[in-house]
């Protein structure tokens, strides 16, 4: 799966501009779906199987990005965020625009006395090498994503947009490996998750599933002096019980945990105080659905270098296949 993760994380497709990644995914899944369609918001919806339960498995395919709001008189591109950035990880980052231009993020106030303070995003800029708006390769509305290559550290992998391309890889791999399913399963690669979970709202309304599962990354509590959170990298698939905006259906949590235990798949119980996923939108679409979340533990979330553990990634595929193969009793 590593070459696939590399290919997906090295594709540039921020929220609202998912064309490139959708093309890559479509190419990967076209032989493994019974039906493929794209809805009004650009969600890529692939059905596999029929009968049994109607299940929606969602992984968002967008990534956080930057959009130029103006180019100042010296040629510096000022930007607004597409999604949430942590300012301290952005200064010095390189970005690539969808039009092919490159730039580096700089910040005002890098004087000696203020060096230790964090610059807010509106005090930052992208230097594209331009000296005026005239010779700037970018203009208002141009969109960029972080530019970092994928690195394989053996057991651990780092890349930009591991959030959520690693889950996209998991879905693709699941579609390939899932020989038969007793259910009507919709694999949905959603758009605009990083800008308040928008693609999942409409795709879930369109599908109206009985069960919804979001596959996403989750922050961990295992780095020096990190948040009080139990989830660690490499200790197994993270089964979501709660995040700040969604409480997983207890029936779904039990189903997942029992399946993991039976198949000897290592798992962790997740109560998260940060972030949310597509599951929250699936839960309340239409008359509602029973939802849950499976997360791949991830360090340095929303920075240019996000790290996951390859065992966790493979175990997520295993758990999904175990869940989808058999009859479901809740």
């Amino acid at each position, binding site marked *: 799966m590593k070459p696939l993760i590399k290919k997906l994380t090295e594709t540039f497709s921020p929220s609202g501009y998912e064309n490139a990644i959708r093309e890559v995914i479509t190419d990967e899944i076209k032989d493994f779906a019974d039906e493929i369609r794209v809805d009004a918001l650009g969600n890529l919806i692939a059905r596999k199987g029929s009968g049994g339960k109607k299940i929606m498995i969602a992984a968002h395919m967008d990534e956080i990005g930057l959009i130029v709001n103006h180019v100042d008189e010296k040629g510096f591109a000022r930007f607004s965020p597409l999604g949430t950035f942590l300012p301290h990880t952005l200064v010095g980052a390189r970005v690539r625009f969808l039009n092919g231009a490159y730039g580096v993020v700089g910040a005002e106030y890098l004087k000696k006395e203020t060096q230790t303070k964090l610059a807010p995003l509106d005090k930052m800029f992208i230097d594209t090498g331009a000296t005026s708006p005239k010779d700037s390769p970018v203009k208002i509305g141009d969109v960029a994503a972080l530019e970092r290559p994928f690195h394989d550290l053996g057991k651990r992998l780092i890349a930009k947009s591991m959030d959520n391309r690693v889950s996209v890889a998991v879905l693709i791999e699941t579609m390939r490996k899932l020989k038969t399913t007793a259910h009507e399963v919709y694999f949905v690669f959603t758009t605009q998750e990083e800008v308040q979970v928008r693609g999942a709202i409409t795709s879930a309304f369109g599908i109206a599933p009985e069960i919804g599962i979001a596959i996403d990354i989750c922050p961990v509590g295992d780095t020096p002096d990190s948040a009080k*959170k139990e989830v660690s990298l490499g200790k197994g698939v993270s089964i979501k019980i709660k995040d700040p905006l969604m409480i997983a259906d*207890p029936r779904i949590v039990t189903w997942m945990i029992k399946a993991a235990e039976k198949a000897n798949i290592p798992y962790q*119980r997740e109560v998260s105080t940060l972030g949310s996923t597509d599951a929250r939108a699936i839960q309340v679409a239409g008359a509602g659905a*029973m939802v849950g979340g499976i997360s791949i533990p991830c360090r340095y979330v929303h920075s240019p270098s996000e790290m996951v553990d390859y065992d966790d990634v493979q175990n997520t595929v295993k758990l999904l296949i175990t869940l989808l193969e058999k009859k479901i009793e809740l």
Partner: protein
Amino acid sequence: MKTDFLKSLLSSSGLSGFEIPVAELIKEKWASLTDELDQSALGSLHGLKRGSGKGHSVMIATHMDAIGLIVSKVSGEFLHVANLGGIDIRVLPGQAVIVHSERGDLSGIIAQPPAHLLPEGEAKGAVALKHLLIDVGLSARQVARKIKIGDTVSFATEPTEMSGGLLAGHSLDNRASVAALTLCLEELQSRDHIWDVWAAATVQEEIGHMGASTSAFQIRPDIAIAVNVTFAKGPGATNWETFELGSGPTIGLGAVNHPFLHQQFKELAEKLEIPFGIEILPGRSGTDGDDLQISVEGIPTIVISIPIRYMHTPVEVVATKDIQRTARLLTEFVAMLDADFLEKIVWDD
């Protein structure tokens, strides 16, 4: 007012997202009061009390979930917790709680570390939730065996009847309204009404009204009433947003509340000589009403509230006569709905 049912609701768990214990109690009570009873995908209870007419329906929604805590990390013999809903952290240290584990309920207390052990600056004012710990009295090994991340933690305080017809307890938000709706269903047993009534005990209101939007989408009522609690006057709470305890329910006015429904409720309360307050809700109401109004293609909605003191603490206080008045107002409103009521809801005048 007979408070047995309300007290049993208050003594039951059923935190946001984990409503099964309280839902079971309500289901048992509503079974004989409704013609049909089922549950939504999210677990909200829908009870249908059929009217003599054909087609029109009013949905009365009361959320049944309660705020509380959830275990987020186990550190040796102590538990770290996250909040389920907007809990008032200032009152947490020293509270008796129940940890609901798969192996049964465990009594515990909320402890706060001594000031000198807190990070610098954190000891002033209310201590943040992340520093509070729950002690259930067990050894680290026993805790590891019995308690899991995701176990819920509810207040252990039992309801207390006080002088002057007041009742104190946790979860009066919003079990007081569930009790009012139940009383209304009881009164409707001997009343003629044309419209169908959908009594809904919704889930997950405290974390974003997830139950209301999904239930309204499923039921598709013609009009909707959200019954919730509001702020009663009390120490430090005296402004225009507060209402005297025991001064009757409030009738919402503002964006979420349809002006025609407001007018109808007001005239009805005046006619019946039920005391009431007018609650100005300029924007969002912070109740199920916000989501009922914009469900499906839009539903004319009104928010009716029961004043309580000390909201989101384990010692919320209600005047039981306000619950009875709310029930009566709801009953009379349902009985008043005639075949033409919907046509009267117009925006022209």
